């Protein structure tokens, strides 16, 4: 049995505790999860839309599949932007010099959220350029 004072020296005394809960633990990959969601809904939505042969939409002089996919894409871009904004606001909480593991995770989250929004924007651009079902 190891006594607590034996390992007390190994503990950082200026660290904030960052409890690894389900939400807290997965927050760093939330942006990329949104990218996965965009991928699934765009690919799946394209398959369903083309199979259901959705009728041409009068709106914006485009077909309804493109319209639906653009909407799904836009929702994901907005979601990713919200995540990025939230992580940007917390980027120095706790401050870098005393952040420890919690600060590392906050900055990792910011990096991944930035990458995620760029990836979501990138995969959606062809929706605006290509016909959906050919």
């Amino acid at each position: 049995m190891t006594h607590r004072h034996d390992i007390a020296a190994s503990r950082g005394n200026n660290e904030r505790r960052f409890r690894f809960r389900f939400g807290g633990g997965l927050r760093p990959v939330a942006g990329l999860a949104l990218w996965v969601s965009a991928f699934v809904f765009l690919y799946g939505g394209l398959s369903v839309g083309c199979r259901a042969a959705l009728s041409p939409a009068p709106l914006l002089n485009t077909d309804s599949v493109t319209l639906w996919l653009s909407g799904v894409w836009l929702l994901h871009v907005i979601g990713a932007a919200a995540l990025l904004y939230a992580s940007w606001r917390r980027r120095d909480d706790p401050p870098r010099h005393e952040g420890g593991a919690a600060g590392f995770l906050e900055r990792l989250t910011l990096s991944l959220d930035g990458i995620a929004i760029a990836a979501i924007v990138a995969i959606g651009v062809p929706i605006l350029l290509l016909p959906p079902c050919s």
Partner: protein
Amino acid sequence: MSSPLSTADAQRSASPIARHRALESLWRDPTGWGGFAAVNHSTIGRRFMLTALVFFLVGGVLAMLIRAQLATSGAGFLDSETYNQIFTMHGTLMMFLFAIPMLEGFAMYLLPKMLGARDLAYPRLGAYAYWCYLCGGLILLGGMALGLAPSSGWFMYTPLSGAQYSPGVNADIWLIGITFAEISAICAGVELITSILTLRAPGMRLDRMPLFAWYVLVTAGMILIGFPPLILGSILLELERAFGLPFFEVTRGGDPLLWQHLFWMFGHPEVYIIFLPAAGMVSTMIPTFARHPMVGYRWIVASIVLLAVASFGLWVHHMFTVGIPHLAQSFFSIASMLVAIPTGVQFFAWIATLWMGKPVWRLPMLYLAGFLFVFVAGGLTGVMLALVPFNWQVHDTHFVVAHMHYVLTGGLLFPLFAAVYYWMPHMTGRMPSERLGTWSFWLIFGGFNVAFLPMHLTGLLGMPRRVFAYPEGLGWDAINMVSSIGSFVMAMGVALFILDVFVHARIGRLASRNPWGAGTLEWAMPTPAPSYNFAALPPVDDRDPLWRTPGLGGDLAGGHGALATWTPGVRETLAVDIVNGEPTHVVRLPGPSYMPFAAAMATAVFFLCVLFKLYMGAMAGAAIALALFIVWAWRTGADDRTRITPEQSDTLLPHTHVSGTPGVWGVGLALTANGTLFAALLFGYGFLWLIAPNWPPAAFIAVSPAWFAGAAAAAVLAWFGAKRALRAEQRGRIATREQGVLLCGAGGLALAGCMGAILIGAPPARAHAYAATTSVLVGYIILHAAVGLVFSAVSWRRGRSTQHVVLTGTDLRLSLIWWRYVAVTALIVVAVVAGLPYVEPLR
């Protein structure tokens, strides 16, 4: 009579030699026949590596046969069926039985040492994983020895691998052997994730973890998500081949493209599952030889995570020619190009580390330089293949073969050989030969490029893959001859490498304690490493602890660190807070046991009986395996009978006395893999409904809605009962606890009954893919309800047992996790099966 080291004070003041002897007797594995009971991570890791090496050598011999056959035009010396078996087995051995198990072996051996722990979280599960891997591999090798090897390619595309075109047992051998080996990989994945997150040295925060641990953590997560689609595909194909349930057969509503989707959902992440641990080795070795900490630690972690997630969005780039809409192809094309960015970030970080440091040129660096060159070349052709029009031109040609080998040899073989040289002193206590190592490098590097660089050209000239012969006069002859010569030169290099390692492991120069001057913890121990790793667990306050405290190894051997005392007969290591690395409790690990070997043999009986269609035998094997697992679970934690005493309030408690134990992690992670399999099954259901040509079926399910409502209510009841039982146990209300368990059992039985009624009411499973997939979905829930009932019964009985003092409700917590999963999946199945006839008009 008490031992001289029976008290904590005596243990603290013991000499390093006395401490070593005591800990060695506690942690070492038995020898002789007792080796079948070995569970120590060093032993299991070494077994994985050596077995993978054997499979690598067999795969290498097959590669030589392939190149000998293709060296000249004409029919060569192999007939088409033998050639098909050889290239199928070459790919299968290298991808499934060499690459991943070898890296798992490295991870199992190294991680506890790098993380400052004494073992992995589930020693018996690791041993079980090894025996499963060995059995799966032997099934495949046995099939090959008998001339019954699979011959449909390592990707087993349907309909070629279906019963009509592959009528023998060959394809079944692949499906059974690979599924067996993949169970092993998933067990290893669960073990590695739990160990990395929870079993580390005190003070090792997430941001102080060695990069290799980050790489393996992410890879193990990818295994849990990437492998189940192939396991599902294998089960469905075996059901089609053995029982005639149509999933891939077009005439009865199936679609062969479903197999391609399921295979490549696994197959593409597999490439990164192979590359990432190897890249982790590179990220460990480069700072050592650069004499500089790794540059861009956070960006490397971000790159690993991005690479892992993005790798699941690439699978369709293997299917660009099957008729998918252009827009869908563009999604996958962009994602395929996207993965070049995180890979590039890692490359720049490695180069920057070398640039910032003062590199020393030692033998492993030669192989790392080879890796940098070869993998970049493979990555560039990968970006070319991500472009849809180019992909159409070279699809199924030797250009793809060349690309794949540049990626896999560059991304795995060169880092792996560097790693073998780097950690050889750690495992054997002896140094390799710089001269032999240099010779073998140039033979491998030169031979590889002579073999595979020209293959790009044969591919561009139109030479298809998987042909056993080709006519002369097409301009392929000379290039193929050069390729074959190069491959034999490479084989000589590999032979020299193996000779060097095995000879110098015995007679090489003795290694000093930290011969390369590394900063990571695995070098803070004597070499070869003792079975207990550390006499005391090291306090960590830096990413490179040995650079900060060069004398750390001596301090630990002298007992200056955590867990410096021990309880005779009890194997202990520290568990820490996942993020902050603060010690939370002591994990007591099981010692040598024949149970993993026996359970693996029972599992092998199940698989072999399925292979030979002896279904009664298969049921017996499954029943024996289940019984052994129950005994295994029953004994876990049963010896921790002590209640917490006031004197213990100032101590770290054993894991049986706290929540969040390894068991909870294990069940949660196993269900993650299971959930991926379920999601892949739902994908298959949706795919067939939307895409397969011969839909709708002649008849939909005709069952009273009451059965669906009953199933949904029963699922919720079982969940509620499990929750009530756990709450009651935590509050010490034994009677309420019993009621909760009974409620849960009643709900589970009712769920199985309702689902059984739905299954009976479904159209015959052989009639149409709709009926077949519906039956599999419903059968999935029945199976899980049955396992849940066993779960509940065991936890209920253990709770009543006087042998087991329930302190944290762990058993019932595990039961709750299981029933929650069953309830959610059952509700989804009810919604999907009951709802499909109503949404059919959408199609």
